[in-house]
């Protein structure tokens, strides 16, 4: 399936800011199951765009705008071909012992150790105890159960957590968005000794699918390493095993490794961040202009030095 993706991030400042420096991770990955056919990135005001691949193989673009500016817009467009992969079935996956021996001989520590957003807490241990999760039977079945259990245990509610919320914020009331649910599941999966990583990307909404989230935002899910199939995607927000509708942009230990945008500027201003994401099957190209949705309004504290750009939470 070929998708057309348009991802627009805009910032408006009053009064104008200066010396913006930004890094973005918005180019879909080019790999075995997914090919990024075309990609373009447009920055306004104009800036020289430079690029590199980070240590996890994600493509990063970065740029700076030295002069004064009161608006700032990043538009990414891509055409991506995602191949359907049959979901692994229990029985096709090796045992816990196989897993342990693969982990012992490979380079998995990064995705096994706790990370900034995916680490054990008192509230997480309570949830784990409730779920009665243990290393028994088939590892894939346990992962599927966990994916389903997290889906069931949490209400999908926007704006109760923010982009830098620790998992306890979502655990307390069992409410949150995909970023929170993914961090929670990653922390639990790693506790079971299964390497697990965060995926930032897009989900193509489909009529009739019971996706809990609305259009218009980036998505996040996770991948667990299982003996046999290797990295398998789980989407606890939608009770899905990742497949043809999930478009991968970046992988990391958690959100902190792969925010779609990250940057700083100088200035003391009221700011407004708007984000629009549209993912459509390419054979039915949509010409309609998308309207960015305002996601955040803030005022930077009045002080000297660098201010961080507001960042979009992965909500979908």
């Amino acid at each position, binding site marked *: 399936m070929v998708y057309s993706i348009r991802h627009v991030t805009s910032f408006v400042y009053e009064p104008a800011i200066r010396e913006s420096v930004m890094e973005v991770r918005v180019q879909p990955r080019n790999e075995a199951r997914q090919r990024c056919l075309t990609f373009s990135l447009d920055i306004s005001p104009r800036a020289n765009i430079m690029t*590199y691949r980070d240590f996890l193989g994600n493509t990063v673009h*970065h740029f700076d705008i*030295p002069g004064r500016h009161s608006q700032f817009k990043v538009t990414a467009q891509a055409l991506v071909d995602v191949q359907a992969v049959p979901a692994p079935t229990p029985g096709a996956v090796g045992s816990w012992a196989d897993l342990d021996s693969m982990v012992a001989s490979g*380079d998995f*520590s990064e995705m096994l150790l706790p990370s900034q957003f995916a680490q054990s807490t008192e509230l997480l241990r309570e949830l784990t105890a409730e779920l009665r999760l243990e290393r028994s039977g088939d590892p894939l079945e346990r992962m599927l159960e966990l994916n389903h259990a997290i889906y069931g245990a949490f209400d999908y509610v926007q704006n109760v957590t923010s982009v830098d919320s620790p998992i306890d914020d979502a655990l307390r009331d069992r409410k949150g968005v995909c970023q929170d649910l993914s961090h929670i599941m990653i922390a639990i999966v790693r506790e079971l000794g299964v390497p697990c990583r965060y995926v930032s990307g897009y989900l193509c909404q489909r009529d009739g699918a019971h996706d809990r989230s609305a259009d218009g935002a980036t998505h996040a899910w996770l991948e667990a390493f299982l003996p046999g199939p290797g990295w398998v995607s789980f989407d606890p927000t939608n009770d899905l095993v990742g497949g043809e509708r999930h478009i991968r942009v970046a992988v990391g230990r958690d959100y902190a490794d792969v925010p779609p945008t990250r940057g*700083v500027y100088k200035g003391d201003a009221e700011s407004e961040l708007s984000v629009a994401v549209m993912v459509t099957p390419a054979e039915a190209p949509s010409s309609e202009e998308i309207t960015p949705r305002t996601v955040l309004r803030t005022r930077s504290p009045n002080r000297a030095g*660098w201010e961080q750009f507001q960042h979009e939470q992965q909500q979908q």
Partner: protein
Amino acid sequence: MNTAMNASAMTLLKTLSSSGTVRNAFPNYELDESYDEMFSSTGIPRDHYHALYRTLLELPPEELRKSQQAADLSFLHQGITFTVYDNKEGTERIFPNDLLPRIIPGEEWRKIEAGLTQRIAALNLFLKDIYHEGHILADKIIPRELVYSCRHFRREMRGLNVPRDIYVSICGSDLVRLPDGSFAVLEDNLRVPSGVSYMLANRKVLKRVFPTLFRDYGVCPIDHYTSALLAILRSLAPVNSAGQNEPSIALLTPGVFNSAYFEHTFLAQQMGIELVEGRDLLVHDNIVYMRTTSGLRRVDVIYRRVDDDFLDPITFRPDSNLGVPGLFNAYRAGNVALANAIGTGVADDKAIYAYVPSIVKYYLGEDEILPNIKTYLLTEKSELGYVLDNMDKLVIKAVGESGGYGMLIGPHSTAEQREEFRARIIAQPRNYIAQPTLALSSAPCFLDGGVEARHVDLRPYILFNGSVTLVPGGLTRVALRRGSLVVNSSQGGGSKDTWVLRREIEVD
């Protein structure tokens, strides 16, 4: 010793020594189980200390006191200060200097030099390896999770090539002398080691205070340190830079509130390079520029005295105002060199330290010349149990800290402090290590009008660009409080000049 000492003085000394009254000259000079730099265990002055010993006997205490005052004044006038954190009183202090030089014979120094040369070569190879192929991890010499869980491991450095593969341009390793007289490495400082300005200042003052003694001893010079440092920094300049012939070099300081700000201004001035703070630099299109009164000027090499965490708010701590946004990407692109490289702190993590002998063996195929101190890793169940049972005998250190912060000295601790550390260790065993309490060697110091013994260590400064430049000497740090074993300047320590002797001592 040189020929200055005449035979009758020698005879007198020997007579006094054998009768055990030599030390009576210094009634407060106490010898304990430690190695003393000046006296053998029987109270006889060591050969290389004879001349200093004689000077101390001959000079009236009043003269010494005057000299000490002159020295103190000189430090005050030079503005040689440092800052102590966590102290409610005024934080800026004059760095206490002790008048009496610590003397190291040439043949001892040669072994130290060989040991440090071997060590830095191995640690630099280790850093290159773990940020690239990771052979030492795949070969299971060091547990992978131990490296990846280091607070100072910078995964952003993986796969990134640094100029000439030099990660550590400047290293300050702390050496201690054990009761048997041998030197061992207590820790390595591979991030932003400080104190070299005190080494240079101590020498400048002592040369004035003891001109004759200094000349007669044949002390190796150390004045070439800053020119050697400048040469090292120049050698890192990117080859594609327009300023290749005359690279533009800056020293990046966190600013006036940093404990080593004096040193930053001193070194920049000595080398004739710009002293800048983060706000003086900017990155545009992956090139680093300095804001000057005549516009922007490109920067090729940065001697940074700012920790990794604070260097670039885009890549590292987003709340840092000390760094330069975009600096890491300019570095990644090879448009600017940093000394030291980013991520070197993983090799001076105190848990990784325990593996340095294995690191030397792995990369160089050699046994270590300078040994380590026995180190208990608390991630090992058996060692954890032993440490928890013997906290009153051990020194416990936080693995990612330096400057003597986050440390428990068992024999000098209260039960309450031990309980606090016990809880912290149990919660996060990876964050602590334990070592036996060391009997650091002692050296003569001029205190309260008399000569007394105080514990000392030694921090030589190693410059590395593939080969090693080691100025003979270093900073001898002194635990000024009687009986104290803590020499860190941030913990109330002082320093003294270190004289490495050019030729062998000949007595008689």
